[in-house]
């Protein structure tokens, strides 16, 4: 067991991937000498060389597009997109090419490309540096999307993404990069596409993922002081979603809150609400309530604390659920 930050855990996970498989390589902007703008790839170029840790030209479509070509040649490229808001020049390659390669080839070709994207707000940054675009990718069949919320998951999930035969986007909760946690490098965390129950409860369930998992846990702790026993599920995988785990929880608790930073409209919370209403309608004591961003471009940093779901917003949603 070692204590490390999420950023360091991903760094160590990438290092393990590079050591385990000579076909893996990293590509991205400023990931070499600098170690990435968040230093997640720190030291890897020094140890693995420029052919395996590639400082790419500043071109996201080129990064994803050449990664697809490398994958066709048998490599396992791990791409870093510098910030959430800068993935869009590569959106075409991700959605029209990467996601469809397997289906277009009638299952003959695989595209085991990993795309790492630091995402989410709460860092006081400028425009395009705080977004949560995961739903745009979740809507695209052919992709898998995961998001770790702690160091242990971060260390293992990046490696599991690399060994997966399908393309995987790893959304990394950038405001939690420096959150420390215990990492057991000898014990894999199981299926990366499954949800984990982090806290047991009997009265309501909160589903959260990525940067909002610590917020959900804090809200559950606060609710306990008010006499409510609240279960917290870390979704971990956004596509596919582990609806079995969520359904099982809701059939026991009867109430469900889904929290994410992304705008609620057309978001992952809406998908979960719909599925759970289909699967557990008779168990529900209240409508599924979503807590998320508003239908606006991510606001300026000076007001983001009012925009981002926090403990109080989740507690308010719990209050509404309990009022039914």
């Amino acid at each position: 067991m070692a204590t490390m930050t999420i950023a360091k855990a991903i760094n160590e996970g990438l290092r393990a991937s590079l050591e385990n498989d000579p076909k893996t390589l990293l590509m991205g902007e400023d990931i070499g000498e600098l170690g990435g703008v968040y230093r997640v790839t720190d030291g890897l170029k020094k140890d693995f060389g420029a052919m395996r840790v590639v400082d790419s030209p500043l071109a996201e479509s080129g990064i994803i597009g050449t990664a697809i070509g490398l994958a066709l040649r048998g490599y396992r490229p791990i791409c870093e997109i510098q910030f959430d808001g800068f993935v869009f020049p590569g959106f075409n390659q991700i959605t029209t090419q990467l996601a469809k390669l397997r289906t277009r080839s009638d299952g003959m070709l695989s595209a085991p490309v990993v795309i790492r994207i630091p995402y989410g707000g709460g860092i006081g940054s400028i425009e395009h540096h705080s977004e949560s675009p995961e739903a745009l990718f979740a809507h695209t069949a052919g992709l898998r999307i995961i998001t770790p919320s702690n160091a242990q998951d971060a260390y293992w999930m990046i490696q599991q993404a690399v060994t997966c035969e399908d393309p995987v986007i790893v959304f990394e909760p950038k405001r939690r990069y420096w959150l420390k946690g215990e990492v057991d490098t000898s014990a894999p965390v199981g299926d990366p596409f499954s949800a984990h129950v982090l806290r047991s409860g009997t009265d309501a369930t909160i589903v959260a993922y990525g940067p909002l998992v610590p917020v959900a846990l804090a809200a559950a702790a606060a609710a306990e002081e008010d006499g409510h026993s609240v279960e917290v599920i870390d979704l971990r995988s956004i596509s596919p979603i582990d609806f079995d785990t969520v359904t099982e929880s809701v059939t026991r608790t009867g109430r469900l809150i889904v929290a994410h930073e992304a705008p609620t409209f057309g978001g992952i919370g809406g998908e979960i609400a719909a599925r759970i209403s289909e699967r557990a309608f008779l168990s529900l004591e209240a409508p599924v309530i979503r807590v998320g961003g508003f239908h606006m471009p991510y606001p300026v940093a000076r007001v983001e604390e009012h925009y981002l779901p926090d403990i109080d917003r989740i507690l308010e949603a719990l209050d509404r659920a309990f009022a039914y």
Partner: protein
Amino acid sequence: MNSSRLPAAEFEVEEVVRATLPAEPDGEPGVTTLQVLAPDGTMASGLTATIAGEHVDFSPYLAADDAGHLRSLYRDMFLIRRFDQESTALQRQGQLALWVPLTGQEGAQIGSGRALAPQDYAFPTYREHGVALTRGVELSDILRLFRGVTNGGWDPRERNFHLYTLVLAAQSPHAVGYAMGLQRDQLADPSLPPAATIAYFGDGASSEGDIHESMVFAASFDAPVVFFCQNNQWAISVPSSVQTKVPLARRAEGYGFPGVRVDGNDVVTVEAVTRWALERARSGKGPVLIEAYTYRMSAHTTADDPTKYRLTRDEQEWQPRDPLARLETYLRAAGLADDAFFEDLGAEAAAMATDLRKAVLAMTAPDLESRFAAVYAEPHPLIQEELRFFQQYEAGFADEGKQA
């Protein structure tokens, strides 16, 4: 030009269109069009050029003296034109959803395709039927895409010929990435035969960002890739002058690698220059851009109507530059092919067309069920759930049928 201020009624449509047509290939400033086999069927004895300051003698790459090879180039061009005609007919008869004709571009495609070594890998757009033929792809497999029974049609790894890509230029970075993989393979195992990739695109796609980004990547990493642009003058209805203000071959200068324009209707030159470019790329000297100057003699697709935007007169001007006619003239004049050769070839093409038609008519639609299995490589709970629903739903109709 202030013509946009004129009332529409004053436009002479013909004049507007003609004004945007590029000048004669040889008359365009700043670029030389390489050619050994002239439209009149005469063959020059050699070919040299200075490309990006490099003096190149293409003689070792020219097949001009090899009668058997020239006949086989003609045969490929003839067969693929017949394939094109039969496919167009199949579309007109409702057997294909759409067809993308290549007539006029046989020289560019057969010449470049025949230059490839078996270990090279080609990344086509969607009109490269001639290249597919040179790679040994079953021609009927191409029509599976256009009949709507698959979005692919062949195993790209068997023929080193990637699937058609309909999003323009998207395959260009794939070709560069694959070439970067070849570089790494070569480093890991120097005994591997050197290999290169070739990215096909057109004058229209040259405006796409993916062409720019892939050229930057290729140049930065000296990737063994040849960018092969078929400038067929038209991106559906928009002339190439809207895509570029300089000859496309010259764009390579800006990326720091050689660019060369060839007469795309001269199969002999296309093959020689592509051989040179591929060899250069395989030897570690980095990418080359080849602009094959040609003409789309037919419509963009069978859904297109060229009479809306270009003149029969212009099509007629290109007719004498036809890639097949000039090689036939040469072969006959040089006594390298006789009537029997052309008659036999006609019979071979007719038989091929008959077989093709049979193959197309026998193509059946896949089950939707099979599509569920081709989305992900690994098990996926949502796919499994939706497949179960679909199967039960379909089974419900079967039960109804029995009761009735």
